[in-house]
């Protein structure tokens, strides 16, 4: 795998591929927002009607939508919800109730009207409101603010606050196929599909996209993030549209898909977190949500239907984010364990609950040294075939494939939902495979994995939940044993890197003692209870086994367990 390490030495400067904001697809979209919204409403209506074959099915769908929405309004209201939620759904309810009194034709009309009202409401909520001026401001804030902090912290001299010796790129290493993605963004529509570990991911990716000189991407951000004003500001400015995970009814999901599909067709580069939500366990996603991913495939087919051989291609770019430290780790892993159904206690501690906490974290992050890496994978077509610089899809023998042929039968591009569902599944398998290949192992992942596996192997009879309740004195590992196991695993990891099955951070080549020291000092470094430390006797131990388990999971799915005997 070719790899350009940005950072350490002089960071590469990428010029914007589209100089004027006027040309950005997302700007064009927001300029014609009204028309765009109308188109989405029309398309969503058609979709819902395609699913609900007859009137009765449509009424069923409306009723179940109403029921779940009323329940949501009552049981689970959020700060971002509009004031008139209750009134709106109440109105829908009385309209639905009156249906029985109407004649057939009148009732059918009312149903359609209600569906349209609901879909319009959803569309308005989902649609982002991109403003180039806000985008520039947010971007400047991020870049400028962060570099001030960074320089003030790294250079301990008077006036360091204003120096520019360090930039964000020293902190955040971008590796992989940057040039390739830039090329393709000029030729087609790029869809980035990153792993998702932290709420910071979207801001981080936003920064990466800007750094690479790409126009802003649109992406679906959880509506819950808009509860927090600092996030809401950034999200709104970075081209986010809103995804509400509470709403699972058909009209909502179809509206969401219409939005994504249509934006892609209009050439807006997009960002999906295909895992759907942050990885609770800390492991790389191995099962992806297929709904939004499917819109990429659908949009590609519709492009071909519309423009034949001249159609714009859609490119999928897997991205893996790596951290030494994930702020939410303790609460994520507790949620994960609770989901597994074995822990009875209810644990809630949202680290992102206030803007203040986030700000505090930012300061910590930039003033202490914890690096982040962003690995950009090889771009692919919507079937997972690699593409060259011109955007041609290639087969394993480097013969050019016409992607249109995947959607063709009897020499015509045809619609076939089941076929596209299957393609989506195939694509998701390829993405997961690429994730594992471009994942860059950090020292902290290595030490966390080895330490947890040693403790686990000592107690083969305990299940995970009992293991996590081990008394402290059983959680101590002698340094020599620890080092020997780290050696075994590190060797294996480097061998697999040679085969292109995994990647490692540049610090991975250091001497083993230093690598371990680096890992220990970095793994979950800002948690109040550290997942891994050396005690006074020099032994390895943990202050929080569950969080250690979280960081350990990062190397899950590679079959590394058998190297810790």
């Amino acid at each position, binding site marked *: 795998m070719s790899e350009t390490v940005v950072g350490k030495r002089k960071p590469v400067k990428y010029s914007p591929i589209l100089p004027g904001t006027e040309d950005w697809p997302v700007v064009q979209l927001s300029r014609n927002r009204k028309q765009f919204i109308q188109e989405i409403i029309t398309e969503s209506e058609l979709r819902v009607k395609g699913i609900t074959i007859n009137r009765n099915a449509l009424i069923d769908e409306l009723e179940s939508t109403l029921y779940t929405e009323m329940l949501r309004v009552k049981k689970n209201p959020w700060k971002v919800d509009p004031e008139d939620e209750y009134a709106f759904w109440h109105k829908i309810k009385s309209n639905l109730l009156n249906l029985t009194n109407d004649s057939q034709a009148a009732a059918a009309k009312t149903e359609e009207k209600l569906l349209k009202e609901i879909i319009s409401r959803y569309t308005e909520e989902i649609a982002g409101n991109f403003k180039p001026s806000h985008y520039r401001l947010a971007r400047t804030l991020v870049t400028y603010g962060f570099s001030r902090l960074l320089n003030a912290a790294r250079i301990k001299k008077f006036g360091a606050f204003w120096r520019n010796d360090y930039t964000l790129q020293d902190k955040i290493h971008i590796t992989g196929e940057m040039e390739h993605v830039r090329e393709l963004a000029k030729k087609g529509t790029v869809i980035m599909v990153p792993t998702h570990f932290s709420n910071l991911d979207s801001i981080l990716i936003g920064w990466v996209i800007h750094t690479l000189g790409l126009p802003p991407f649109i992406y679906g951000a959880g509506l819950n993030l808009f509860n927090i004003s600092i996030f809401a500001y950034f999200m709104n400015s970075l081209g986010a549209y809103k995804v509400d995970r509470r709403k699972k009814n058909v009209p909502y999901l179809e509206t969401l898909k219409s939005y994504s599909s249509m934006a892609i067709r209009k050439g807006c580069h997009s960002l999906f977190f295909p895992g759907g939500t942050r990885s609770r366990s800390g492991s790389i996603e191995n099962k992806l949500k297929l709904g939004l991913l499917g819109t990429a495939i659908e949009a590609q087919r519709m492009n071909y239907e519309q423009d034949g051989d001249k159609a714009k291609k859609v490119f999928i770019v897997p991205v893996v984010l790596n951290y030494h430290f994930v702020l939410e780790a303790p609460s994520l892993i507790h949620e994960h364990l609770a989901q597994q159904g074995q822990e009875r206690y209810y644990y809630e501690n949202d680290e992102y609950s206030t803007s203040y906490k986030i700000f505090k974290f930012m300061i910590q992050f930039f003033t202490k040294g914890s690096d982040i890496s962003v690995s950009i994978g090889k771009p692919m077509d919507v*079937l997972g*075939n690699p593409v060259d610089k011109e955007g041609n899809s290639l*087969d*394993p*023998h480097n*013969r050019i*494939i*016409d*992607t249109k*042929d*995947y959607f*063709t*039968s*009897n*020499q015509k591009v045809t619609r*076939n939902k*089941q*076929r596209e569902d*299957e*393609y989506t599944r*195939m694509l998701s398998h390829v993405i997961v495979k690429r994730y594992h290949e471009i994942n860059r192992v950090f020292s902290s992942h290595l030490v966390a994995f080895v330490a947890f596996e040693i403790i686990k192997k000592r107690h083969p009879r305990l299940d995970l939940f009992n293991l996590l309740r081990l008394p402290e004195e059983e959680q101590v590992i002698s340094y020599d044993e620890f080092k020997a196991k780290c050696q075994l695993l590190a060797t294996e990891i480097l061998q697999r890197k040679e085969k292109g099955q995994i990647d490692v951070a540049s610090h991975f080549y250091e001497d083993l003692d230093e690598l371990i020291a680096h890992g220990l000092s970095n793994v979950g470094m800002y948690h109040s209870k550290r997942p891994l430390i050396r005690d006074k006797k020099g032994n390895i131990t943990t202050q929080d086994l569950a969080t250690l388990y979280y960081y350990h999971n990062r190397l899950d799915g590679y079959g590394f367990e058998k190297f810790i005997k």
Partner: protein
Amino acid sequence: MASKNSSNKPIGVVGSGSFGAAVANLLAQNNEVLMYARRKEVVEDMLQNRVCHGHTLHERITPTNDLKYLAEQCEIIFPVIPSANFREMMKQLSPYLHPYHMLIHGTKGLDTSLAPSGAMESGAKLTREHVKTMSEVIREESVVVRIGCLAGPNLARELADGHPAATVVASHFDEVIHEGQRLLRSDRFQVYGSADLIGIELCGVLKNIIAIASGALSGMDLGENARALLISRGMVEMIYLGRALGGNTQAFIGLAGVGDLVATCSSKLSRNYSVGFRLAKGEKLNDIIGSMDEIAEGVNTVRIMKKLADHYKVRAPITEVLHKVLFEDMTVQEALQYLMKFPLNTDIDFI
């Protein structure tokens, strides 16, 4: 019945064995068929005599020796050739294939060409990574994704005689199943669909093991109780092995599983059955194979599955003793004794 295929493109068949000819004849009832044979003289012979392995060829079948032409003319192709030649054939065909092609194969064997050389003969272990079903070979060697397979009780001779029968077309794609049904269905031939591609492929592959054993029972004249015992225990073994390779239980209790198993275990028309039969009569494996004009896939399947069962620790007594009989000089009588002493406690423990 007139073809509904709007483009009226011919349907391709790759392979000129007896099952290939039977499939081509079924297809020719509704469509033009291009039938590929690797050897020129076979094509010449088919052109002149209109006969292939005793099957009279339908008038709508055109033999050809040109894979490129076949791929250009046909969107739907049925590869029906021995598993040992399958990957090589795919390599030759692959440059002419496009993602719009559909491939529905009828090969009932496994591919081990990715295994380290000599692994099959030596004691080296074999894993799933090295053993591929034909649909996996198609995926690896070409850009074709719309892939299906044919499996079921389809003894070629009976099909040719026009006896009623049915088959299963399995694919992850509904459109492939629909095409298979549209192309093959007739008054005398029923076509079922399944989404478990790997499971259905494995049904066809694994039943050949049991067919050899069944032939051996007949060779020893042991009667129908013994065969019923073999078929039901054989089915359990197929399910264990099949699941270890990624199939679902359901496939094995359907037409392609138990249906095909019963047909192959009871019919002298089956090649694998005759291997077992002749072994029981005292012939040597090499002589049997040498005298057959077509390949009995089961022999190689026993070899592969024995290694896989060892590696994945799957209980497969029938496969194990067959391996001893075929390759380790155990006699059929000894094998039978061994099996009857095998400690089994539960009848069914997988549903």
